[in-house]
């Protein structure tokens, strides 16, 4: 048998293997260039981008929890202009698809940003983070209301012809309903899950540990919830699904593919091991070899139930 085929296609973006890096956990790629070969992973997803630079939350912004971590970075980022000037030039030199994760504080900001990104040839696709409060509508979170999600995704869809991935929040009663709304609005693919909202407390100080009080839970702790949601959504929608949540090993990644994911994203694992994404991709290849599987696509949704 020759080398197994690890390539997959998501929303029209061709990936050499299914392992992408999750937004906010991999900076703009360059930060990890010393630790892995950026051309050995499937895609780089950049830190959540907004139209203007965003200060984010006060510190402490992160805290470890059992088997996971909470973060309340508050979507600090350089803004689209600095992104184009300071971050894109390096990414241009890397022969790996770059997917830009974006968010807005209002509907209009989403549209504006998508329009600007649409013009950048270096950007292979957009990943829309809808887990943000809509400042104009009294802080109701786009990602927990199907109508609001439909609206924002529709607007982004009108603003770009680039491949459009929508990233779903797990903090909902019915993730399938949210998934359907996003697909109806024109999403080419769905990625899930974003972080679960959580809290940590310092008993001695009697204060929340995070300055923001609550934060997003990520890491191995959330993997079972992520697997369940990916499985539910993959059964319900016709577009490709990208599995995210607590992926640390090739085994984890392949479990998500069995559950129906076409590709995966590695987040918190990058902190434990900055070469994690590459190690996981290589581990997947080894698994396929050892088990005589010619094409990783055979595993997508292959769960026996």
């Amino acid at each position, binding site marked *: 048998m020759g080398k197994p085929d690890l390539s997959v296609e998501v929303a029209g973006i061709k990936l050499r293997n299914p392992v992408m890096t999750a937004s906010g956990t991999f*900076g703009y790629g360059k930060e990890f260039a010393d630790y892995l070969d950026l051309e050995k992973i499937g895609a780089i997803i950049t830190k959540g981008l907004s139209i203007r630079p965003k200060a984010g939350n006060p510190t402490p912004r*992160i805290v470890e929890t059992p088997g996971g971590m909470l973060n309340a970075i508050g979507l600090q980022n350089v803004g689209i202009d600095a992104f184009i000037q300071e971050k894109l030039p390096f990414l241009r030199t890397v022969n790996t698809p770059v997917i830009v994760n974006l968010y807005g504080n209002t509907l209009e900001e989403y549209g504006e940003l998508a329009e600007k990104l649409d013009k950048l040839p270096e950007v292979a696709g957009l990943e829309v983070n809808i887990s943000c409060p809509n400042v104009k509508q009294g802080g109701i979170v786009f990602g927990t209301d199907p109508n609001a999600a439909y609206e924002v995704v529709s607007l982004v869809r009108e603003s770009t012809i680039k491949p459009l991935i929508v990233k779903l929040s797990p903090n909902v009663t019915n993730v399938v309903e949210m998934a359907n709304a996003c697909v109806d609005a024109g999403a080419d693919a769905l990625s899930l899950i974003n972080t679960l909202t959580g809290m940590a407390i310092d008993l001695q100080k009697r204060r929340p540990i995070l300055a923001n009080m609550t934060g997003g839970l990520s890491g191995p702790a959330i993997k079972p919830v992520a697997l369940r949601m990916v499985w539910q959504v993959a059964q319900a929608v016709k577009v490709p699904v990208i599995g995210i949540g607590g992926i640390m090993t090739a085994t984890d990644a392949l479990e998500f593919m069995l559950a129906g994911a076409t590709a995966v994203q590695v987040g918190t694992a990058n902190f*434990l091991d900055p070469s994690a994404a590459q190690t996981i991709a290589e581990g997947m290849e080894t698994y396929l070899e050892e088990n005589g599987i010619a094409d990783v696509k055979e595993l997508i949704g292959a769960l026996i139930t």
Partner: protein
Amino acid sequence: MQFKSMIISNIEVSPGYFKMRMTAPPAVRSATPGQFIMVRVRDAIDPLLRRPFGIFDLGTFATAYTDCGTQTYFEILYKVVGKGTEMLSTLHQGDHLDILGPLGKGFMPGDPSGEKILVGGGVGMAPLYYLAKEMVKTSKVRLFAGGRNKEDILCITEFERLGVETYVSTDDGTLGASGLVTEVLEKHLSESIDNKTIFACGPFPMLRAIAAIAGRHDIPCQVSLEAYMACGVGACLGCVMKGRNHSNETPDYRCVCKDGPVFDYRDLQWD
């Protein structure tokens, strides 16, 4: 760089404080004082994140095997404060650790003819030893070491052996002068500030007080900060401090892991 280290020794140097010596690849020798490493305490999810530690010392020794030549090592000095450091303290010679480093920006030695004032609070002494070792080669070095009590005063003999002039103070007076290290420092500076530079590491309130002192006396001062860290490489934005020009409209955050941990105190906002 990411590498595996083997533990050479791990000993309790003062109650609750340990010094660990580890093997390292030769490239680690280029680390500058003030840089740090991130340790994966266990190959498990508990603890999950790496733990950051300053480089206490660094060097080489001749191995017993003539073919191997010399072996590079480095040391960390750490205080047991929680789960991760607790587990570290139970490790033995021969155990292995996964290390990231050297990371961040270290101290800038500056003009060798100037006098170097090192200020360490508790385990904040850790990165100052390697700094002192480099600086005594060319400069006059003084160390102001403070702590809550005598157990917190670490490795003074080692500093003295380097030829560093040491000034010890404890909050409870169990060792050296009684009071805050900043008081002793302020008193010393009030005598003369000629061509002196401060290099400080310790708890945040101490560093803030020292920044204020440096400001008042208008003397150069570099501080080494701590922060909760996840990535250590400037990617997660977990460890930021407000930079000089920071405002909500024009964010100027500095990553302690990447832009620091050592900063010119004037580059930060201290409120």
